[in-house]
């Protein structure tokens, strides 16, 4: 004989997703991540108070810390906006890291070819090369997807490894600084190829403002244009989109080229901003982390500005906590994964309602 619970939990789908919960749950996910972090710190034998303080609070107390937050958030926001446009249309570009790398290679090539030249046009040229590099690299999965129906998740990811190896081929080989004591890095770029700094004493470069503008532009595209409308319809009601005759291949091209181009531009800003040269590793995984940023911002460009700042804190908090309390840098990655887990789990309450129902007699 089985005991019946006195109360049944009934789970039913909401007729409409709850708007309030849709925007409250990311905050809840952040709070849950911090609480889990607390438990994690205790388990690892760190005093939770100071660890939390140096991870989440003290980086925000100085002007330099705040500027670094923007410097780290800029690539996350740019890439996140591009990816969000694709994710909305069910186009899964997860190779943004590779497109970032290729953009940096293209832009870095321009900077090195014009090394020593001066001119206001060098930076725009690098930006254009970076966008083109990232977009062309994303064109490979787009072509394979639209022409041969090859899964874009796998191709874009595989190409990321190839891009990293290509960059390493160049900086260990032909692009190595001839006066650099054989270190695997290019020459330092000349001033004409370096982004202007906005606030003295910080690394806050012009690119951070461009990133914010791009987010606004992404919002306008999704909300007020026909293309944006098509993207949203394809994602939410693929059958309706087919019926309306929206071209799926065209949207796949659009989404991949946009997200690739933005990732390429982000790579350009990294090498023309904080780094100032080509090195074997130009990104601490921005291209992958931007996936989390896109989801945490609810695939909404303005939400992505906020989520980009939150996730950027996990990078500088990780660095800060490593210096101050000796926390391993790897905590950052674990936090970022946890954050996405909590967010995806919280989606359940957005889409479903849990109700208490009296037990069925018998």
């Amino acid at each position, binding site marked *: 004989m089985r005991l019946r619970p006195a109360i049944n939990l*009934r*789970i*039913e*789908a909401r007729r409409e997703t709850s708007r309030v919960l849709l925007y409250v749950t990311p905050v809840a996910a952040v709070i849950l991540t911090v609480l889990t972090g607390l438990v994690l710190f205790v388990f690892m034998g760190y005093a939770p108070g100071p660890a939390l303080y140096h991870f989440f609070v003290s980086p925000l107390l100085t002007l330099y810390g705040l500027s670094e937050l923007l410097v780290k958030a800029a690539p996350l926001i740019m890439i996140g906006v591009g990816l969000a446009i694709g994710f909305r249309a069910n186009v*899964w570009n*997860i190779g943004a890291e590779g497109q970032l790398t290729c953009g940096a290679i293209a832009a870095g090539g321009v900077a090195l070819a014009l090394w020593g030249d001066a001119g206001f046009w060098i930076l725009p040229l690098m930006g254009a090369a970076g966008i083109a590099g990232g977009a062309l690299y994303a064109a*490979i999965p787009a072509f*394979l997807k639209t*022409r*041969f*129906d*090859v*899964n874009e*998740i*796998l*191709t874009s*990811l*595989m*190409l990321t*490894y*190839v891009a990293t*190896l*290509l960059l*390493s*081929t160049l900086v*260990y*080989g032909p692009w190595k600084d001839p006066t650099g004591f054989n270190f695997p890095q290019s020459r330092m770029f000349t001033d004409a190829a370096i982004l202007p700094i906005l606030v003295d004493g910080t690394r806050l470069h012009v690119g951070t403002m461009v990133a914010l503008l791009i987010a606004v532009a992404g919002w306008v595209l999704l909300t007020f244009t026909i293309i944006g409308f098509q993207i949203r319809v394809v994602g939410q009601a693929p059958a309706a989109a087919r019926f309306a005759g929206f071209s799926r291949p065209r949207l796949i091209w659009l989404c991949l080229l946009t997200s690739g181009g933005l990732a390429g531009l982000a790579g350009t800003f990294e090498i023309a901003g904080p780094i100032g040269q080509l090195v074997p590793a130009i990104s601490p995984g921005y291209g*992958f*982390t931007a*996936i*989390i940023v896109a*989801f945490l911002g609810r695939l909404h460009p303005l939400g992505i500005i906020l989520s980009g700042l939150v996730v950027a804190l996990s990078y500088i908090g990780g660095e800060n906590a490593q210096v101050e309390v000796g926390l*391993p840098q*790897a*905590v*950052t*990655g*674990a*936090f*970022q*994964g*946890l954050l*996405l*887990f909590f967010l*995806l*789990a919280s*989606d*359940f309450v957005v*889409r*479903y309602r849990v109700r208490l129902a009296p037990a069925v007699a018998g």
Partner: protein
Amino acid sequence: MTIASLGLVLLTIIGAATPLLFAAIGELIAEKSGVLNLGVEGMMLAGAVVGFAVTVTTGSSLLGVLSAAFAGGAMAFLFGVLTLTLAANQVATGLALTIFGIGLSALFGTGFVGVPVTPLPKLAIPGLSDLPVIGPLLFGHDALVYLSIAATAAVAWFLKRSRPGMILRAVGESDLSAHSIGYNVIAVRYYAVLFGGAMAGLGGAFLSLSYTPMWAEEMTAGRGWIAVALVVFASWRPWRALLGAYLFGGVTILQLYAQGAGGFGIPAQVMSMLPYLATVLVLTIISAGPWKGRLDAPACLGKPFRPSN
């Protein structure tokens, strides 16, 4: 190339193929039940670091291997709770599992970088293992190599001949029908996903305990993703997954030997691109070829299922 050195090449190919085979066979079962788990890379890393850490601290490779399978399974359970119980998007959750696995394994393995470990013992069969060339090739491996091949055979038999295997396929082909004739779709998928995680964990353990006996951050280097690609390449058939794993093992090893032989003037990094480029190429051929219509992807692959009350 002498016969002896050819034997040596084949031996290393087996080593490169085994982690891919474990992960691919596990993912194949998960996908056959209708679940697309893109977290293989993360589960492999969990297995690699836990297998390594337990072997180093307890001195027992058996315990190490078992806990690696357990760690992979635990990661898979997390994936199951999110995608099966909470009906979250499988693609997004799989990506989260990989990102989480990379971070968590790096965190867990901080103290184990550069620590030496006793590699898995080779099972030597007196007499047979001493035969020239064939001896080491067929009879000189550690237990995991044989286990990976036995698992392939077992999974092939399970899917084709056994009753639970047919239920699993039914759940993957038509979740609603399977549900309406009384099978517990969610439970079947949990089992499949957990099996996939345990196998990925074993693949990771083989990497850190046998292929390159050490722990390094992100040491899987995309093998989890290649395993996902292999399942497509294999059209969801276990023996073809074995063939694919050995082909990729071959590509990996041949480019390593080419690098060692001076690389014909090609930079080492360009050679290292080969396995990744080969994956893209193979996926394209398999998706575009004349056999396109017979790819046999499970009909419910990647679709969330929630039984209505």
